[in-house]
C-alpha cells in the first residue's frame, strides 16, 4: 500500500473517474475537427511546423540567390525576380519565421513550464496562428506569379510609393504583413497574461524559469514596438491608395519618417527574436551541466536591460542618412551599451558550465548551444564594430552587414532553436530525435554557416553592396562569393538532415521518455492533453531537482486542481508577484468561431490588396460576426467557489483588476496607446521637417474653437454616460432598459465626436492629399475613428448580452471591457484634439 504524505494539498488515492473526466474535457477533437483544436500543445506544434515551413521556403529562396551570385555576370534569376526574391526572403524570415517561431515556442512551452492547463485565451492564440498561416501562405505564394513585393523587407519609400512601385506587389507586403503583425500582438497579449497570471502556486517572479522571463519581456517589447510599424504601414498604404503625402518631400512629407518608424520597430525586433532564444539557452545549459544557473538574477536584469536599451538604438540603422553628429554620438553609445547585457549572459552560461558537478554532456542540444555561443559572440563583436559610426559609414548596406546580421540572427536564434527542437521534442513526440542524425545536422549547419557567411565580411569591405542581383568579375568578389554559395548549400544539407530526422523520428503524441535529460523544470513533469495531472506547489527554481518525488505526486493528483470542479476547461489564476492562488479561470474549448474569424480576416486584408473591395468588405463583416459569436460563448457564469486542495477554496468568476480579462484589456490599451504615441511622434517629426506647410501659414486656418470643444464635450459626455450605465447594471436575471439606452447614446456621441472633428476640417477646405500637415490632421481622426469603431461594436455587443440576460451587476466582464475601451478611446480622442487644435495655435 502506497503512503501519501499528509502535507500535500490533496489526499490520495484520487477518486475513480476523475482522470477520465479530465481526459474527456481536454480531449483533442478528432478527424477534420482537429482544425478547431485549441490545446496549446496541438496548436503549438502546428505553429512551429508552419514557421519551420516558412524557414525552409525562405531558405530555398536564399539558395536561389546564392546560385545567382555564385559567379559574376550571372543571368540565372534576372534582375526583377532577384529583387522580388530578396524582398520575400527577408520578409519571410523576419515576419513569417523568426517572430512566429519564438511566439510558437512560447505557446508550446510556457503552459508546460508553468504547469498551467493552457494559456488563458486558448482561442485567441489559435486565431493568431490560423490568421498567420493563411496570410503567410498567400503572401509567400505571390513569388510564384510575379506579384511579390520588391522594395526590400524594409520597404523604404519613396521607392515603395505608387510612382516608383505601381502594381499591387507592395500592397501585398503592406496589407499581408501588417495583418500578421496584428496576429503577433494577439499572441503577445496571451503570453503576458499567461506568464503573469497562470503560474503555479508558489512560483514567485523570482522563481520563474528564465524562459518565462524572456517571453514576458519579448511580449512586452512586441506591445511597444509593433504598433510603430503598424502605423508606418497604415501611413504608407494611405499614401499609396489615396495620395496622403506622408513620405513625399515635395508636399512636406519625409522619406526618413518611414525609417524612424520602421526601425523603432525593427531594432527591438532583433532582440524580440534573440531574447527568447537566449532564454532557452539559459534553460538548457543548467541541465547539461546538471547544476542551477549561475547568475539567475544577473540574467534577468540583463534581459530587462536588453529590452529597455533596444528601444534606444533604432537610429544606428540610419547612421548614413546624414543625421546630426549629436544623434550619432548618442545612438552609437547606446548601441555599444546593449552589448553589455549580452556579455553578462554569455559569461553566466560559461560560469554555469564551469560549476558542473559531473562531466559536461556532449549531446546534440549542447552542440547546437556551443555553436550558438561561438557564432553569436562573433556576431556580437561585429555588432560593436558597426556601432562605431565611422566604421558603419563603410560597412553599412554592404555584405559586411549581411554577414553581421546573419551571425546575430542565425547564430543567436536559429542555432538555439535547433537545440530546442532536440531538447524539447520528447515533450510532444513519442520518440526522441536521433543523436546520430542530429550530429550530422549540427556539423553541416555549423560548417556551412561559417563558410557561407564569414567570407561576406571581407566581400562587403571589398566594396560589394547588399541587394545587388549581379556584379562584375573584375572587382575581386568572385571567389569569395563562390565560397559563400558553397557554404550555403552545405548548411542547407544540414537542415535537410534535420528534416529527415523529423520525418523518421518525430511522432506527435504522448508516451515519450519522461525527463530524458534529467531537467529541473516543470515542463518535464509527466503530462497529457490536460497538461499536468495536478498543478504542483513550487518552492524553488528547479522543482524537479529539489522535490524529488514531485513527478510522482503530480501524476497521482496530490497537488492542486487534480480534477475539473466546474466540469469544463480550467486552470488556476495566481497573483502577479507572489503567485498566490486567486481564482479558477473557466476557459473555452475547441470551436469553429475563431477559425472562421481568422479565415475571413485574412480574406478581407488580402482581397483589399487586389482591390476587390466589395468582397473584402463582406469578408470583413463576416470576420466581425465570427468574433461576436466567438465572444458570445465566453464570459461564462459563476460556478460558485471550488476546492483546489490544500484547504484553498477559490471563486470561479472574477472581475476588475484581478481578472485575466481586465489585464488583457489593459495591455490592448497599451498597444493602442503605443500606436497613438507613434502617431504623435510622426506629427511632430514632420512639423520639424516641414513647418512651412503647417496651419495657419501653409494650410487653411484651423476650424473655430467650437468644433474641438463640441467634440470634446461629446467624448466626455459619452464617458459619463458609460459611468452612469455601470452604476445602473441590473441584478442577475433582470433586465433594465436604461443601461442599453445609455450605451447606445454613448456610442452615438462617440461617432458624433469623430464626425464633428472631420466636419470641422472639411469645412475649412483642408484636403488630406494637399500636404503632410493636412494628411496628419485627418490621420488623427482615422486613428480615433478605428478605436471608436471597435468601441461601438463592443457597446452593441454589451447591449445584446444584457438583452439575453447574460450580463448583470455580477457577471459583467463584457461591460467592463466595453467601458474600458470606451474611456480609452475618449482619452485618445481628447489627446488628438489637443494636438491637432492646440499645437498649430501654440506655434502659430
Amino acid at each position, binding site marked *: 500500500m502506497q503512503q501519501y504524505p499528509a502535507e500535500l494539498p490533496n489526499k490520495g488515492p484520487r477518486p475513480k473517474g476523475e482522470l477520465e473526466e479530465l481526459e474527456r474535457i481536454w480531449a483533442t477533437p478528432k478527424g477534420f475537427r482537429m482544425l478547431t483544436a485549441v490545446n496549446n500543445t496541438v496548436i503549438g506544434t502546428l505553429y512551429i511546423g508552419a514557421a519551420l515551413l516558412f524557414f525552409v521556403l525562405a531558405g530555398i529562396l536564399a539558395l536561389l540567390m546564392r546560385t545567382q551570385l555564385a559567379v559574376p555576370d550571372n543571368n540565372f534569376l*534576372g*534582375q526583377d525576380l532577384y529583387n522580388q526574391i530578396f524582398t520575400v526572403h527577408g520578409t519571410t524570415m523576419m515576419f513569417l519565421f523568426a517572430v512566429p517561431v519564438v511566439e510558437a515556442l512560447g505557446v508550446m512551452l510556457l503552459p508546460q513550464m508553468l504547469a498551467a492547463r493552457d494559456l488563458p485565451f486558448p482561442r485567441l492564440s489559435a486565431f493568431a496562428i490560423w490568421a498567420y498561416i493563411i496570410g503567410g501562405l498567400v503572401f509567400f505564394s505571390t513569388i510564384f506569379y510575379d506579384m511579390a513585393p520588391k*522594395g526590400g523587407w524594409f520597404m*523604404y519609400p*519613396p521607392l515603395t510609393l505608387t510612382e*516608383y*512601385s505601381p502594381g499591387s506587389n507592395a500592397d501585398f507586403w503592406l496589407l499581408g504583413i501588417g495583418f500578421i503583425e496584428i496576429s503577433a500582438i494577439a499572441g503577445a497579449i496571451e503570453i503576458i497574461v499567461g506568464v503573469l497570471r497562470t503560474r503555479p502556486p508558489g512560483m514567485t517572479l523570482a522563481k520563474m524559469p528564465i524562459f518565462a522571463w524572456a517571453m514576458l519581456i519579448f511580449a512586452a517589447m512586441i506591445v511597444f514596438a509593433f504598433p510603430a510599424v503598424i502605423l508606418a504601414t497604415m501611413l504608407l498604404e494611405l499614401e499609396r491608395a489615396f495620395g496622403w503625402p506622408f513620405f*513625399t*518631400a515635395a508636399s512636406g512629407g519625409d*522619406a526618413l519618417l518611414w525609417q524612424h518608424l520602421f526601425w523603432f520597430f525593427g531594432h527591438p525586433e532583433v532582440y524580440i527574436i534573440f531574447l527568447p532564444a537566449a532564454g532557452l539557452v539559459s534553460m538548457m545549459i543548467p541541465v547539461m551541466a546538471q547544476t542551477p544557473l*549561475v547568475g539567475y538574477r*544577473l540574467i534577468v536584469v540583463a534581459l530587462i536591460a536588453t529590452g529597455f536599451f533596444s528601444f534606444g538604438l533604432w537610429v544606428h540603422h540610419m547612421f*548614413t*542618412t*546624414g543625421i546630426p553628429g549629436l544623434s*550619432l*554620438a548618442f545612438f*552609437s*553609445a547606446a548601441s*555599444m*551599451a546593449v552589448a*553589455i547585457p549580452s*556579455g*553578462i*549572459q*554569455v*559569461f*553566466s552560461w*560559461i*560560469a*554555469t*558550465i*564551469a560549476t*558542473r558537478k559531473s562531466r*559536461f554532456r556532449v549531446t546534440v542540444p549542447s552542440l547546437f548551444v*556551443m555553436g550558438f*555561443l*561561438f557564432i553569436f559572440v562573433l556576431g556580437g*563583436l561585429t555588432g*560593436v*564594430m558597426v556601432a*562605431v*559610426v*565611422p*566604421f*558603419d*559609414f*563603410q560597412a*553599412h*548596406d*554592404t555584405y559586411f552587414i549581411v554577414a553581421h546580421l546573419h551571425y546575430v540572427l542565425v547564430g543567436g536564434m536559429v542555432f538555439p532553436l535547433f537545440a530546442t527542437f532536440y531538447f524539447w521534442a520528447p515533450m510532444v513526440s513519442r520518440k526522441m530525435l536521433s543523436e546520430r542524425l542530429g550530429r550530422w545536422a549540427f556539423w553541416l549547419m555549423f560548417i556551412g554557416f561559417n563558410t557561407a557567411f564569414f567570407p561576406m565580411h571581407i566581400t562587403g*569591405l*571589398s*566594396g560589394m*553592396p547588399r*541587394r545587388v542581383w*549581379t556584379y562584375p568579375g573584375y*572587382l*575581386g*568578389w568572385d571567389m569569395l562569393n563562390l565560397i559563400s554559395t558553397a557554404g550555403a548549400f552545405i548548411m542547407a544539407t544540414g537542415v535537410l538532415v534535420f528534416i529527415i530526422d523529423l520525418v523518421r523520428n518525430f511522432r506527435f503524441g504522448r508516451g515519450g521518455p519522461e525527463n530524458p535529460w534529467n531537467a529541473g523544470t516543470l515542463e518535464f513533469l509527466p503530462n497529457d492533453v490536460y497538461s499536468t495531472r495536478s498543478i504542483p506547489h513550487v518552492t524553488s527554481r528547479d522543482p524537479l531537482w529539489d522535490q524529488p518525488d514531485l513527478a510522482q505526486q503530480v501524476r497521482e493528483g496530490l497537488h492542486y486542481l487534480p480534477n475539473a470542479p466546474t466540469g469544463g476547461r480550467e486552470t488556476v489564476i495566481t497573483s502577479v508577484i507572489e503567485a498566490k492562488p486567486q481564482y479558477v479561470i473557466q476557459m473555452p474549448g475547441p470551436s469553429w468561431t475563431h477559425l472562421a474569424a481568422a479565415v475571413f480576416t485574412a480574406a478581407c486584408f488580402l482581397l483589399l490588396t487586389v482591390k476587390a473591395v466589395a468582397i473584402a468588405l463582406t469578408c470583413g463583416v463576416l470576420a466581425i460576426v465570427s468574433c461576436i459569436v466567438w465572444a458570445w460563448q465566453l464570459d461564462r457564469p459563476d460556478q460558485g467557489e471550488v476546492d483546489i486542495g490544500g484547504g484553498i477554496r477559490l471563486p470561479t468568476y472574477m472581475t476588475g483588476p484581478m481578472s485575466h480579462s481586465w489585464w488583457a484589456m489593459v495591455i490592448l490599451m497599451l498597444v493602442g496607446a503605443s500606436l497613438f504615441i507613434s502617431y504623435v511622434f510622426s506629427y511632430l517629426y514632420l512639423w520639424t521637417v516641414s513647418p512651412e506647410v503647417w496651419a495657419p501659414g501653409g494650410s487653411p486656418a484651423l476650424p473655430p474653437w467650437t468644433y474641438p470643444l463640441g467634440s470634446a464635450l461629446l467624448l466626455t459626455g459619452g464617458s459619463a454616460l458609460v459611468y452612469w450605465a455601470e452604476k445602473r447594471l441590473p441584478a442577475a436575471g433582470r433586465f433594465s432598459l436604461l443601461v442599453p439606452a445609455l450605451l447606445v447614446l454613448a456610442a452615438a456621441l462617440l461617432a458624433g465626436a469623430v464626425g464633428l472633428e472631420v466636419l470641422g476640417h472639411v469645412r475649412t477646405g483642408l484636403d488630406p492629399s494637399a500636404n503632410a500637415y493636412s494628411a496628419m490632421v485627418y490621420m488623427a481622426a482615422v486613428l480615433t475613428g478605428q478605436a471608436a469603431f471597435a468601441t461601438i461594436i463592443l457597446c452593441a455587443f454589451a447591449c445584446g448580452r444584457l438583452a439575453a440576460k447574460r450580463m448583470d451587476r455580477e457577471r459583467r466582464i463584457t461591460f467592463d471591457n466595453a467601458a474600458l475601451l470606451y474611456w480609452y478611446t475618449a482619452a485618445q480622442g481628447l489627446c488628438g484634439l489637443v494636438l491637432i487644435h492646440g499645437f498649430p495655435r501654440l506655434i502659430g
Partner: protein
Amino acid sequence: MSKGPLWTMAGTGLLVLLAGCNSEQSAFTPAGAEAERINILFWIMTIAGGLILVGVIVLSAVAIHAGETLRSRLSSERFIIGAGLVFPVTVLSMLLVYGFVVLRAGASAPPSDNGIRFVISGEQWWWRVTYFDADGNSFESANELHIPVGQPVRLELTTADVLHSFWVPRLAGKLDMIPGRTNVLTITATEEGVSRGQCAEYCGGAHALMSFHVVAQTPEDFEAWMAKESGPAVRSEAGPAVRGGQLFLDSGCGGCHAIRGTPAAGVIGPDLTHVGSRHSLAAATLPNTAEAFAHWIANNQHIKPENKMPPYNIFTRSELEDLAFYLESLQ
C-alpha cells in the same frame, strides 16, 4: 596604401590576395584620408575582437574540460561581473572615444578654397554630376567625378527620385541621398588614380548596375580637365562622326541627352558632351568603346533592365556604327 602600422599593410595584403587582385572598389586599399582612418579603426577593432573571441573560446573550453580548481574560478557571480560587465564597459568606453575622434576628424575638414562646388544627384540608375565654378557657372557630366588630390572636397548629394547612397570605399564612407535634403560628404583623396564607387542604398530595378568612377588628379591636371570639360563638344570632321552626329539629332536623342555645342539639349538622361572621354558607359556597366556604344543603343534593356532609355532597334548596322563612332569621338 595605408599609412598605418606595418600589420595593417600585411593584413591588407592578405585580404587583397584573398579577394583577388583588383581593388578599385575596396575599403582595404584606401586612397583617401577618411577611408584611411576607417581602415586603421577596422584593423584595431578586428584584432581586438579576434582576441576577445579567442578568449571566450578558451574560457568555454576551460569550463567544459578543465579540472575542478581551474573551473572554480569561473563559477561565481564575481567572474560574471568581471568578464561580462567591468571588462566590456572599459573596452567599449575606450572604443567609443576613439570612434568619436575618427568621426570628428572626418567631419571637421575645412572646405576647399578653390570655390568649386560639386553637386551629385542620384537618379534611377545613374549619377548626374554638376560642377559649379567660383563664378557660379555650371556644367554637367555623368557617372564620373573628377576631384583634385590633397584637398578636402565637399560633395553636395541629392536625389531626383528615390533614395540612393553615394559610396566610394577607397575614399570615404557612404552617405545617403534623400529627397528634399542635401547631404554633404567631405572627401580628401590622398593619391592620384581612379576609384570605383557604387550606389549602396537599394533603389529598385537596376540598383546593382549603378556605379561610377572617381578620378583624383593633381590640382593642375584637375584645372586643365575642368577647362576642357566645361567647354562644348569637340567636333570631329571624320565622315562617320558627321553622319553619326546628324543621326543623333534626327533620331530625337537630343530629347533626353544634351551635347553642348549642338542643338541636343535634353535634360532627362546623362549629358553626353564629353562622353567619349569617360571611363565607362551606363554607370560603369560597360567599358567605354565604340562597340559598347552600339551594343548599348540597341540592347540597353537587356544589358541594364528597366533603365529609362528605350531600346533603339531602328538603326541599321552601319548607322549604329556611325552613331557609336560619333559618341566615342566626343572626347
